């Protein structure tokens, strides 16, 4: 029982990262129909951004949490305007290659600068644990989980309660038709991309105090996140968040009871979901 609760908690914490990353991928895919293969690299850059701010400017965690996502969101916006946008009209393969290339370049630049071992980051805003007798929950992990839930809820409110949210949901569901209703969907593409990038960067900053910060950290994680997005339903914002937390937890518990499957459980789940519901749990069949 103790280890069950402990693992479930750890799983939810992993799930927070999956959810934030999957949410960004989902809004980007929904709006641009681009699978952003640079998403893992942005997460890595987010973590390194926190390290860099601490080392070179002496700015701690809270500054990093504020500045890094904003800075990377702006960089993402520029990349969208200058590069990705130009390829949107072509076969999606072009943007697949472009974003994959961007990811490799970022990863190698970090490796040139920092080598491939992990960088220390000792600026967690809270330390120690909540000791509940039978088990302990590290305070920082609880903070991460809480913040991630709050951010996901805020995005949900933004999408469901505001005019911009309605427009974005409409553009995600029927991109072409939405233009015929007097909405310049093109105007929203770049901000949405920047927003998704900002979420990935936020996840990266959150990871810095508790995960190994190295140039490969995003590449390892993002494969699972792609599986999460597929299970949740490509482009389904709600599905990506639910799948993020659920899979984080299932994978952790799977690890506890079926250690042999620890590397493959997510993909087995993905295969089963795709066999039963090819569009994912919350996905819809494509419309033009």
């Amino acid at each position: 029982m103790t280890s069950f609760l402990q693992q479930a908690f750890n799983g939810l914490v992993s799930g927070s990262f999956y959810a934030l990353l999957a949410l960004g991928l989902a809004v980007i895919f929904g709006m641009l129909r681009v699978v952003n293969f640079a998403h893992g690299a942005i997460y890595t850059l987010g973590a390194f951004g926190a390290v860099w701010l601490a080392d070179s400017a002496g700015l701690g965690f809270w500054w990093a949490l504020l500045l890094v996502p904003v800075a990377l969101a702006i960089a993402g916006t520029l990349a969208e305007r200058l590069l990705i946008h130009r390829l949107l009209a072509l076969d999606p393969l072009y943007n697949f290659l472009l974003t994959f290339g961007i990811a490799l370049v970022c990863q190698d630049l970090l490796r040139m600068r920092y080598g491939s071992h992990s960088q220390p980051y000792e600026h967690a805003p809270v330390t120690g644990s909540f000791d509940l007798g039978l088990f302990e929950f590290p305070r920082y992990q609880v903070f991460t989980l809480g913040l991630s839930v709050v951010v996901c809820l805020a995005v949900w409110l933004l999408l469901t309660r505001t005019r911009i949210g309605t427009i974005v949901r409409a553009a995600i569901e029927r991109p072409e038709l939405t233009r015929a209703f007097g909405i310049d969907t093109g105007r929203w593409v770049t901000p949405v991309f920047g927003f998704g990038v900002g979420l990935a960067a936020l996840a990266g900053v959150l990871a810095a105090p508790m995960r190994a910060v190295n140039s490969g950290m995003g590449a390892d994680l993002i494969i699972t996140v792609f599986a999460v997005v597929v299970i949740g339903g490509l482009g389904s914002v709600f599905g990506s968040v639910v799948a993020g937390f659920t899979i984080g937890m299932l994978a952790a518990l799977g690890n506890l009871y079926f250690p042999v499957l620890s590397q493959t459980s997510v993909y087995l789940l993905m295969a089963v979901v795709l066999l039963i519901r090819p569009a994912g749990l919350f996905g819809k069949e494509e419309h033009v």
Partner: protein
Amino acid sequence: MLDITGVSASYGEARVLDEVTLQVGDGEVVTLVGRNGAGKTTLLRCVMGLHRAMTGRVVFAGRDLTAVPPHRRARLGIGYVPDDRGIYAGLSVEENLTLPPATLASAWPLPRIYDTFPVLATRRRLPGGKLSGGEHQMLALARVLRTGARVLLCDEPTEGLAPIIVDRIGEILREVKRDGVAVLLVEQNLRFAATVADRHYLLAQGRIVESLRNAEVRQREGELLAYLGL
């Protein structure tokens, strides 16, 4: 109001519209009839700017639309009711209704919409995906009327609907017509078409082959139905 001149269009190599020319005047309801695959939907998409015409031009209220993107066309006053009704399953009925900006002077206020379409008022909070076929069509019509569109492009609005709903759509189109709105109506149901329309164009393999008055459609109904393969 709407002037289509020499519009041709294709999908890849396949030409589906060949120099189509037609006009719809203020307060006029004009139908476009033709077999499946004749190019009716493609013509509406060209007018909306969703499909690029290779030649020809579309002029709306004296303004050449060639270089105008779809969202600007909608804001100028062209309302599109697509063949699949275009309802967003994930948006509530009211969100569907208020999605297009109502910027024109002729825009219908929401109370008038709910008066005319009471069923939408009772379903306001439901997701668009939960409505019946008839309700979908009502919502699609209401949505463009709310914007105050001066030309409606309606793609087979009565298809698959119960007679009582078809009648209601007819009443609404006649009301809209009295307001001076122009309607380009794609319709296979000739009997219905004759009750709302002033004129009819017969489209075959991407060409306008005949232009008919209402009386002629009534006289030649049997022949036309046979031609349409209905």
